């Protein structure tokens, strides 16, 4: 009887692998490339112990800890310790995102599209779909863990021994498995794929924030976050394997609960309540602009809340950072020309840039939503009314711009409200607020870029790749000592770092003009192309 529940799991796994024959390798290669590539670069860039030790001093402060995770072995900062400190937490965060997207794709979305029904009508077990998804994820992460481990070890860096390298790989893998399991659970609770993605991302975001708060204030708090568990393995320093084992056990329990819930619920049903909607459209959502906004309302608000919380969290760390620098006299000697305040400011500009990248995600989503509408043949219904092409794409551009103001504003508000409250006098509310808001024209350039691809009707994923590049330049630019030529390719590098640098109107104007130009090109292209379905 039990066996029947899982019948044909193997064949469904093959179906998933076939469907994701490009998607999975791209994710895997991306992680391997960045991880092993960074480690390889460390080897050349920070050859001497002194250079690394200086990096350790620069990065050993509460603000950075909140951002990138706790540093272990800072007093003996080997390449390995540096790798685990600088790269691990952020990589785990992105792996978590990968798990959420992939698991929802193969569970709740599949159910929503009616394909689970097709499969259940065939001789297959009731739990086979969820089980096959989880097994494919486990398999993927096993491959990631092994290849990362072997890859790092094969670089032949002394401090990156086999045990530590395999642990590094295992840390990546287990995080993926953990969030695959939790997403599987949320896919049972929520009734829609959007709901499942939202709840799962909420867990990822909260997990990262709890870790940030815990790492800065009280380590016990970090143990309430799955990121805290995995980082607690102190890769390349103490190499504890037990946190990996513990996370695996918790993951198995969560997966078992998800399977149980799947077995007792009806197809297409969830456990969380849903409510009825309006009988009539509000006056607002009777226009296309209003409708487009209305359709994205929940998404925009959720992102704004998350970004606000992120801003507030990092803002509240500023006080600790300032005190920290004030107490450590040695910092002044190491960084001869900088004092505590300017170190804090430097951190502010880094956080501001990262928050700007984060805020750009919903902005690109807002305009790229148009592609989905087109694929689902909803665009043609609207274009069949008295609606011009210019106005149609224009409305999406407008919604993206509105989104950028809301999300950047939320982040700026969070950072500056919390920051100004804890830092006395040295940094003003407006300085912190502007540090993020100054990125507004740069995000509009991203909107313009997305608009061009929307006008082309192809390669709509490229703005995402570009945003990834922008993020890498911000996050790893200094660390990997990227050349100016490479950095200048990122539009965010052409934004002055407030409050370290001054606000220049001309810079914002130029970026705005470029953005407008790109948007016009997008509109012109869209006017000329076929609308496909």
């Amino acid at each position, binding site marked *: 009887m039990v066996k029947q529940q899982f019948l044909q799991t193997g*064949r469904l796994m093959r179906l998933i692998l076939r469907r994701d024959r490009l998607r999975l390798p791209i994710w895997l290669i991306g992680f391997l490339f960045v991880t092993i590539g960074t480690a390889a670069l460390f080897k050349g860039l920070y050859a001497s112990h002194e250079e690394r030790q200086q990096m350790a001093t620069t990065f050993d402060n509460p603000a950075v800890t909140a951002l990138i995770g706790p540093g272990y072995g800072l007093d003996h900062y080997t390449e390995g310790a540096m790798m685990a400190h600088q790269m691990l937490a952020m990589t785990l965060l992105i792996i978590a995102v990968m798990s959420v997207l992939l698991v929802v794709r193969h569970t709740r979305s599949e159910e929503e599209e009616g*394909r689970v029904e097709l499969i259940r009508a*065939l001789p297959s077990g009731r739990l086979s779909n969820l089980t096959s998804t989880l097994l494919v994820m486990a398999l993927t992460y096993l491959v990631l863990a092994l290849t990362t481990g072997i890859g790092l070890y094969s670089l032949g860096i002394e401090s990156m021994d086999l045990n530590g390298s395999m642990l590094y790989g295992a840390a990546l893998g287990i995080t993926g498995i953990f969030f695959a399991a939790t997403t599987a659970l949320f896919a049972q609770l929520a009734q829609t794929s959007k709901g499942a993605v939202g709840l799962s991302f909420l867990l990822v975001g909260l997990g990262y924030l709890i870790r940030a708060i815990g790492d800065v204030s009280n380590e016990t708090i970090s143990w309430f976050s799955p990121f805290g568990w995995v980082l607690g393995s102190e890769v390349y320093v103490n190499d504890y394997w037990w946190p990996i084992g513990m996370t695996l056990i918790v993951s198995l329990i969560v997966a078992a609960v998800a399977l149980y819930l799947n077995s007792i619920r009806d197809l297409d049903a969830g456990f969380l309540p849903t409510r009825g909607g309006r009988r009539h459209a509000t006056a607002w959502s009777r226009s296309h602009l209003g409708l487009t906004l209305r359709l994205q309302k929940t998404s925009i608000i959720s992102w704004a809340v998350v970004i606000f919380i992120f801003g507030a969290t990092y803002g509240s760390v500023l006080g600790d950072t300032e005190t920290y620098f004030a107490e450590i006299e040695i910092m002044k000697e190491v960084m001869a020309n900088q004092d505590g305040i300017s170190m804090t400011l430097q951190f502010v500009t880094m956080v501001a840039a990262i928050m700007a990248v984060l805020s750009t995600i919903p902005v690109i989503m807002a305009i790229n939503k148009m592609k989905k509408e087109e*694929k689902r043949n909803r665009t043609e219904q609207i274009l069949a009314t008295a609606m011009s092409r210019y106005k149609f794409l224009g409305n999406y551009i407008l919604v993206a711009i509105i989104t950028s103001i809301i999300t950047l504003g939320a982040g700026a508000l969070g950072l500056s409200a919390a920051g100004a409250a804890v830092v006395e006098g040295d940094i003003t509310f407006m300085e912190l607020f502007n540090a993020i808001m100054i990125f507004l024209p740069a995000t509009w350039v991203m909107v313009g870029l997305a608009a061009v691809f929307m006008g082309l009707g192809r390669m709509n994923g490229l703005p995402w790749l570009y945003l990834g590049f922008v993020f890498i330049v911000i996050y790893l630019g200094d660390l990997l000592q990227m050349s100016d030529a490479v950095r200048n390719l990122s539009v965010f590098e052409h934004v002055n770092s407030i409050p370290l640098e001054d606000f220049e109107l001309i810079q914002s104007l130029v970026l705005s003009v470029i953005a407008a130009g790109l948007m016009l090109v997008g509109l012109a292209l869209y006017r000329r192309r076929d609308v496909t379905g």
Partner: protein
Amino acid sequence: MSVLKAEGLTKKFGKVQALKGVNLEVNEGEVFGFIGPNGAGKSTTIRILLGILQATSGKATIFGRDVWKEAVEIHKRIAYVPGDVNLWSNLTGGEVIDFFTEMRGAKLDLDRKEELIERFQLDPTKKCATYSKGNRQKVALVSAFAADADLYILDEPTSGLDPLMERVFQECVLEAKREGKSVLLSSHILSEVEKLCDTVGIIRQGEIIESGSLNDLRHLTRTTIVLETKNELSFDHLSGIHDVHKEGSTYQFQVDTEKLDEVMQYVSQAGVTKIESAPPTLEDLFMRHYEGEAGGEK
């Protein structure tokens, strides 16, 4: 011998009672038409029969096996086509057909697959993302009829098909019937049901309100008659006559089937010069039940 039997199926979704006791029986070699308005519970019933939803109460068996507990065994011998087929966008139609066949544990009969692809005029090399609704439906139909199933469960299978393909579909159903296979066909296209089905069940608000062979059900309806007579007719003294229209010497009216004899005897005395009679259609039957429902609800 009955292939499918459901007794007193009920289903509650939270507070909503979707099914209030559905009884169905499909016999071997029979094509059973399952009809009812939107939201009456057709798909819910079918999903219970497929073991996808668990009935709140009642019992349903296919091939004598419990539809919930022994779903897997049952599914090896059935084929299902839903009314709204969604497929994996980056697989081709041909790949999907093979996948379904393999899932069913059957050996792929390439000749049969090619024959059906030919008949339904499907291009199996295209990615599913590029298929129109009708073409996605064809993929599901080809997979279903390529399977050597003993029972076909078809939930509005022809939605989106053109009339030519609809005819191909009807041929496939009749072929299956000739081979002694059974079909449960849920449909809105009454002409299709009339052409294909031996037995019909009508569901309304979660209950089967009428079921039986089409011939039996026709007795419950009225025959439409158009008459031209030499002498004036008066129907006042007759019962069972409805909707009388008179134009010159032509009369059009409907007669309850059980009063037909009485009425014919009366009119034959009036010197009939022309007579047309239209048998009751399923549509009449359908409308009679549904109009009643609409009236009852408002």
